[in-house]
């Protein structure tokens, strides 16, 4: 009995290891942070792009309207293509778009907005990228749909037509 148990356990261990590695092969090795929804907007002090005034984020998202927080930069190529979608979305009265200007210079950012239009109700100036971390973002572009001071949806990467339609459905 003892003699049979040892080879049996060895085979069992190898089968288990094989299954774990085989399953692992099918998983992507690129990790995307957990996309949490329905959590509070972080309460932090931020600098406004135009006036340089320091305000709390909770003061920015204080109405019952829907807000789309968009992290963008003039050096970010996908942001250019996404900007056209934002210009289209702003036609909805129930939506305000807030920008976080990520690791950019004011001069380049202004030039970008003059060229492509300004869909932003307010812009937060995030010179060193630390504000984006408060939102759990790790790159540009990233966007958050917010309602009543709660984040209800997070979009990583540039908007697609599908995500645009989804936002339209949300704010209807």
């Amino acid at each position: 009995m003892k003699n049979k148990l040892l080879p049996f356990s060895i085979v069992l261990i190898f089968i288990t290891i094989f299954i774990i590695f085989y399953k692992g092969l099918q998983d992507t090795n690129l990790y995307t942070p957990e996309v949490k929804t329905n959590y509070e907007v972080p309460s932090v002090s931020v600098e406004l792009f135009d006036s340089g005034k320091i305000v709390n984020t909770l003061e920015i998202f204080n109405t019952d309207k829907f807000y789309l927080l968009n992290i963008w930069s003039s050096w970010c190529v996908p942001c250019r293509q996404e900007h056209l979608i934002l210009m289209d979305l702003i036609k909805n009265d129930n939506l305000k778009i807030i920008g976080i200007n990520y690791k950019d210079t004011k001069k380049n950012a202004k030039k970008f907005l003059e060229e492509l239009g300004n869909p932003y109700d307010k812009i937060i100036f995030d010179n060193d990228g630390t504000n984006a971390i408060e939102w759990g973002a790790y790159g540009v572009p990233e966007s958050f749909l917010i309602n009543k001071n709660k984040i209800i949806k997070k979009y990583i990467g540039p908007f697609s037509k599908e995500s645009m339609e989804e936002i339209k459905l949300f704010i209807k």
Partner: protein
Amino acid sequence: MKIFKLFLIIFFIFPINSLKADNEILKNKITKNLRCLICQGQSVYDSDSEFANSLKIVVDSKIDEGLSEKQIYSYFQSKYGEWILYDPLFNRNTYFLWLLPLLIFFVGGAIIFNKFIKKP
């Protein structure tokens, strides 16, 4: 008088320097245990990506605010999930991971004990 002044200068500057050095050691320790999400496979300490550089600034400011190492980890964990930490935490999802080596050690030890020590 000159010696007294020199002594005063050394007295005031030295502790500040050592305090800064302590913070630097702690910052390095923390950033080595944080995973860069842009260049995955590298720690924040090793990475020079925009994201990693911002994270280093945040770690610095959290240390200055007086947060402990554990509090800083839980801050980043709340923002990005547990995966940002290189050392997995000891919880329901990781019991197996942490206890497996111990289990193997004891089972292996028992086998060796039975085969080679107990028999003769």
